[in-house]
């Protein structure tokens, strides 16, 4: 017995040591919360304060609290200056276009009253430092349109010029928006590299708040930046961001009053929170994420729509029939609880809204289209076969794979099932497949389903960040983007007229752009390489005491945190 208790003692000492080591992280807990603080709950730690590195959304959320870009975008899609004194345009002389070379020069003037939290002024040197860090070929990062830039030159302490090799329409938000901010040249260590530097996790603030503590996996604490340039702002003294992985726990905390903001509220959550007196939901006036059906115009397993056209989908009438057979209103009502808004074209956001009439839900017309295209059910098994169709061998069965991705969750999977059911009634057999997004979207070299052409139809959500759709449209519909891994035109769609218009929208002539985008919308409407169906909701839930919260499809909900107040 003696020997045994001796061992127990050893074990006990060891355990105590382990326990004490476990107690370390709590030792530096924060002082008591001020009464005017709020709590934001998010499911995971932001990777850093630099959204360019991982673009999780959580990085942008905390970035907006502490860092400023040259400009940002409000919930209605209007660009406003942050570090800039004004927005450079052709009209105010800030943008000069050289018609001969097709290049442009943008001159930015910065505010002179913005300081870093250590009192150093924010100057053009910081902008140039940021640009040079991004373009470092070894340790830099990538931001949209960076390849258009030839050079950035300092023209004064608070002014600089960006020389573009060609017209870049997204110039206004290139160093702003939800992703890009200006980094302090005197504080960040360039030798650590833009993507990995320490100041990306311990930022020096020039925004409304200062990061005072970050306990990994647990919480982050932000306090008011006393040096913030906007007089009297922010009004809330302290923001705590707590990491709460479980969705239902976050929701319960909001209802219980232990959380003030739960970002990215989904449709079921909005519906559940509706009757809660202490909770409000802010919805974005515009929506970014359009749930859409993609068609593979090349045969499953191939990537060339000319050599190996898809036996079913390469016939436009089949695509039209599929569209006519999808009941968007029912999907919105049943699976998205009425929060999904119908969307049938790419151009639904200001300033590029095109007037395309909404297609009708008409299963009878759909059946007629399929009959006309030569797809008929002659053997009575409920599935149509090719009987005189132009795209497949006689007798080819109308059966296809229908993919979606799992991470979106139940509403999208139910939508997939419902569409398959509707098309099944029409005589089209769809085999449902649910895969991880990273497998669906991976490069063809990594076995990506879309890029390799290993699909027939799939459904998921996408939309462009910011206010300029040009690059997004290029990536999805340009001929160059149809090459596997060089873009996202995995429909392998091409249209000469569209291609020409696409070349023309790289201009600063807004009237021209609006016209051309709507001509493009008309071509897409005619050819239907993608079927936009409806927008998923863009909303954030917050406590009733928190005022001025405005959810935005153009940015994270913290975009205007400096304006928030407590009732």
């Amino acid at each position, binding site marked *: 017995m003696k020997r045994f208790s001796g061992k127990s003692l050893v074990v006990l000492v060891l355990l105590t040591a382990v326990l004490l080591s476990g107690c370390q992280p709590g030792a530096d*807990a924060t002082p008591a919360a001020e009464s005017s603080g709020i709590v934001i709950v998010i499911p995971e730690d932001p990777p850093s304060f630099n959204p360019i590195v991982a673009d999780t959304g959580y990085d942008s959320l905390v970035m907006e609290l502490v860092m400023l870009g040259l400009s940002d975008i409000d919930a209605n899609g209007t660009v406003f200056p942050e570090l800039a004194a004004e927005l450079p345009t052709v009209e105010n002389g800030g943008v000069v276009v050289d018609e001969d070379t097709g290049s442009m020069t943008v001159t930015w003037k910065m505010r002179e009253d913005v300081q870093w939290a250590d009192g150093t002024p924010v100057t053009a040197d910081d902008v140039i430092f940021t640009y040079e860090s991004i373009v470092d070929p070894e340790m830099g990062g990538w931001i949209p349109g960076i390849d258009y830039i030839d050079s950035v030159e300092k023209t004064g302490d608070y002014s600089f010029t960006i020389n573009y090799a060609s017209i870049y329409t997204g110039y206004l938000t290139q160093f702003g928006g939800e992703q890009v901010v200006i980094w302090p040249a005197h504080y960040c260590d360039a030798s650590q590299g833009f993507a990995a530097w320490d100041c990306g996790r311990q930022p020096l603030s020039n925004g409304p708040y200062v990061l005072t503590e970050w306990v990994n996996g647990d919480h982050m604490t932000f306090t008011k930046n006393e040096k913030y340039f906007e007089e009297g702002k922010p009004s809330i003294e302290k923001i705590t961001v707590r990491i709460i992985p479980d969705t239902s726990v976050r929701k319960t905390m909001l209802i219980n009053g232990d959380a003030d903001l739960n970002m990215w509220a989904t449709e079921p959550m909005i519906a559940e929170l509706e009757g809660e007196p202490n909770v409000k939901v802010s919805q974005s006036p515009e929506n970014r994420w359009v749930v859409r059906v993609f068609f593979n115009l090349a045969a499953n397993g191939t990537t060339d729509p000319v050599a190996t056209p898809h036996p079913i989908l390469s016939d436009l009438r089949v695509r039209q029939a599929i569209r006519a057979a999808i009941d968007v209103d029912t999907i919105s009502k049943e699976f998205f609880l009425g929060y999904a808004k119908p969307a049938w074209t790419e151009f639904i956001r200001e300033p590029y809204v095109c007037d395309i009439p909404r297609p009708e839900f008409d299963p009878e017309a759909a059946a007629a289209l399929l009959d006309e295209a030569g797809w008929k059910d002659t053997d009575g098994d409920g599935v149509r076969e090719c009987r005189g169709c132009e795209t497949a061998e006689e007798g080819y069965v109308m059966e296809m794979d229908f993919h979606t991705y799992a991470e979106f969750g139940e509403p999208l999977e139910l939508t997939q099932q419902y569409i398959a059911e509707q098309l099944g009634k029409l005589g089209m057999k769809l085999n449902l497949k649910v895969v991880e997004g990273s497998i669906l979207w991976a490069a063809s070299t990594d076995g990506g389903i879309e890029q390799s052409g290993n699909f027939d139809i799939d459904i998921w959500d996408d939309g462009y960040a910011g206010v300029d759709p040009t690059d997004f449209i290029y990536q999805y519909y340009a001929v160059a983007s149809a090459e596997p891994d060089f873009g996202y035109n995995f429909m392998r769609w091409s249209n000469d007229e569209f291609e020409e218009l696409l070349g023309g929208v790289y201009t600063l002539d807004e009237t021209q752009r609006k016209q051309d985008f709507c001509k493009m919308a008309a071509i897409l409407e005619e050819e239907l390489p993608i079927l936009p169906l409806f927008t998923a909701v863009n909303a954030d839930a917050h406590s009733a005491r928190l005022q001025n919260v405005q959810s935005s499809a153009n940015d994270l909900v913290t975009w205007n945190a400096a304006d928030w107040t407590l009732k």
Partner: protein
Amino acid sequence: MTTYILRRLIQTAGLLFFLSVLLFALVNLAPGGPLSGQGQSRHIDPDKVELLKRQFGLDKPLPTQYLIWLVGNDWMQVDRDGDGVMDGYGTRLGILRGDFGFSFRTRQPVLTEIGQRLPNTIYLTVITILVAILVAIPIGIISAIRQYSAFDISVTTFSFAGQAIPEFWLGLILILVFYAWLKNPFTGDPLLPSGGMTSIDVSGFDLGDRIVHLILPVLTGALGWIAWYSRFLRSSMLDVIHQDYIRTARAKGLSNWSVLTKHGLRNALIPLVTLLALDLPYLFGGAIFVETLFAWPGMARLYYQAALERDYPVLMAVLIIGAASIILSNLLADILYAWLDPRIRYE
């Protein structure tokens, strides 16, 4: 014994090497990857993909990637800026020299990431085990010596329930009851916090606050183990108390208590200790639900996230550490066995 342990350790190293090759291949060859869709982006721009491949070292053939992961690249020329010209020696040391690389997600050294989380997981797991054992042992003993009593039958029922209830469901119900429904009658606050290790507004070390935060996660984590260990000890104890030497001890006139503790329990505990050592990795594995539900900043959550985002370096580090701990806990079980049971000798 020393020779035996040494031999086992050498075997362990060989086994770990083999496992590392296997795991590296499995992790890297699984479809999808860190460069397919990133956070809010469904796709990554081809230019960015090229840059990230180079920065992550994914532009090299898989065997080279493994070699660099294992022994580093400070002995070979690397092309850092992608211009096709070598720019000097690399900076990676490889895991054999303690460099597990950096996380694709945060660009932080993997060991920093794990170092921030592992102590929290150990802290929770050890307390969970302690509670499980301290509750399971008396329950097991009483059910054994009072076999088929009302206590034994209710414990048996509870055991089946305890093993059958999934942790994620139990945890949610506990949060609902103790956080959302029941209130502290004096302050009106929730009776227990919904999660976290400490209250954010508590400064310094506050034992009470710590305990309050431990109740629900430990209860959720320990219930299944209490059920399992008490059942195990019950049958082990039943085996022992019907042995001849117990009868002999009683015949000698020893007190009932002395017979049970000295001759009964000690022998009944031996298989339990082995079982416990073998279960250790499972206890850590089970932490994923508890850590997620109770917002516990532990390593299981880190691993889960790394798996979702294909953060290869973090994934590999956790897998290798996990594999090592399974192999070592097996070794520990063997050694403990010999230590506790003098009849067992390894030669």
